[in-house]
C-alpha cells in the first residue's frame, strides 16, 4: 500500500534484510540495535532492555533453522513481542524496584553534564515517561512505527490485528502523548 520508510534514525546499512542466505550474525548485526531500542522504549529500563534483546537473539537463533522465507520482519517482531510479553508476565510474579531515570542518575554523577545536554536529556526523559504512561497497545504501536520504523502492515502482522486497528492505536497514542507533553 505504501512504500516502506527508511529506518528512523538508523544508518542506511542497517535497513535492508537479505531474506536468502540468512545467518544469525546477519540478524544480530542488522537488527540487534533496533530490538534493543524497541525494548528500551517499551520498558524504560536499560537493564531490562538488554536482557530482553539477548533473549530475543537467542530465540532467533533457535528459530532460524525452521524459518520459512516470507515476512522476516513479521517473524522477528512477533518473536520480540512474545519475549516482551513473557518478560512482563515473569515480572508480575516477581516485582522489582525500578531504577532511577536517566536525569536522576546524571544528577548524581561526579562531573555535571552541560546544560544543553541536560535539557536534551530532560526532554527525552519527559517523552520516555509519557510513552510509559500510554496503554501498552498504543505504546507498542507508536514505538514500532516511530522508533523501529515498521509500516502499519508490518506492525499489524507482528501484533496479529488488522491494519485499521494499528492505524487507530498510533493515532490515539500520539494524541495522548501530545496531551501529556503540551
Amino acid at each position, binding site marked *: 500500500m505504501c512504500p516502506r520508510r527508511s529506518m528512523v534514525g538508523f544508518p542506511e546499512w542497517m535497513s535492508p534484510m537479505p531474506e536468502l542466505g540468512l545467518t544469525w550474525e546477519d540478524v544480530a548485526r542488522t537488527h540487534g540495535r533496533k530490538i534493543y531500542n524497541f525494548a528500551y522504549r517499551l520498558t524504560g529500563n536499560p537493564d531490562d532492555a*538488554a536482557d530482553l534483546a539477548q533473549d530475543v537473539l537467542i530465540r532467533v537463533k*533457535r528459530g532460524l533453522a525452521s524459518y520459512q522465507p516470507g515476512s522476516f520482519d513479521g517473524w522477528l517482531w512477533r518473536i520480540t513481542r512474545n519475549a516482551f510479553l513473557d518478560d512482563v508476565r515473569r515480572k508480575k510474579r516477581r516485582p522489582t524496584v525500578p531504577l532511577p531515570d536517566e536525569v536522576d542518575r546524571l544528577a548524581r554523577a561526579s562531573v555535571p553534564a552541560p546544560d544543553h545536554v541536560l535539557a536534551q536529556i530532560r526532554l527525552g526523559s519527559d517523552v520516555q515517561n509519557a510513552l510509559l504512561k500510554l496503554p501498552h497497545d498504543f505504546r507498542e504501536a*507508536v514505538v514500532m512505527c516511530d522508533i523501529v520504523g515498521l509500516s502499519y502492515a508490518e506492525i499489524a502482522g507482528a501484533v496479529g490485528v488488522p491494519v485499521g486497528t494499528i492505524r487507530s492505536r498510533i493515532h490515539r497514542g*500520539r494524541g495522548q502523548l501530545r496531551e501529556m507533553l503540551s
Partner: protein
Amino acid sequence: MSHSGELLSAYLDGELTSAEEVDVVAHLESCTRCQGELGDLHGARAMVRALPILEVPTWVISGAAASTAEMQVRRRPLAWAAAAAAAAFVLVIGFATFVATPPAIDITFSEISDTLRLPASQDGLPAARAVVIARTAGGIAE
C-alpha cells in the same frame, strides 16, 4: 462535514490509499480544526522520533552468540532426567518410611497386663510396662 480523525496520523506516515489521501488533502484545505490536529500529531511524532538511538551493550550480542543451539537442546533432556530422578527418590523414601513405621497402637500398659495376665511388679507398675521399657532401651522390638 466529518473531520479526518485517525486518517491524519496515517496521512503523516504515508499510510493512506490514494483515494483517502485525496479526501484528506481536500478536507485539510478548509478545516482549521484538522489543520491544528495535524500539527499536534506531527509534533508528537517528531518528539518520539527525536529520542536518541542507543547502542546495544556489547555483552548482549556476545552472550547470545555464546549461547549455542546445542546448549538449549541439551538442557531439556537434563532437566527431564533430574525431574525423573527426584520423583523416583521421593517415591523410594516415601515407601521406605511407610514400611519402616509400625502402626500406632493406642493401648495402655494395664490393658496389656490384663490381656497377658501379667502380675503387677513390686514398685506398682504393671509388668507389661517394665517389659516394654527394658526392651525398648535395649533396642529390641517385638
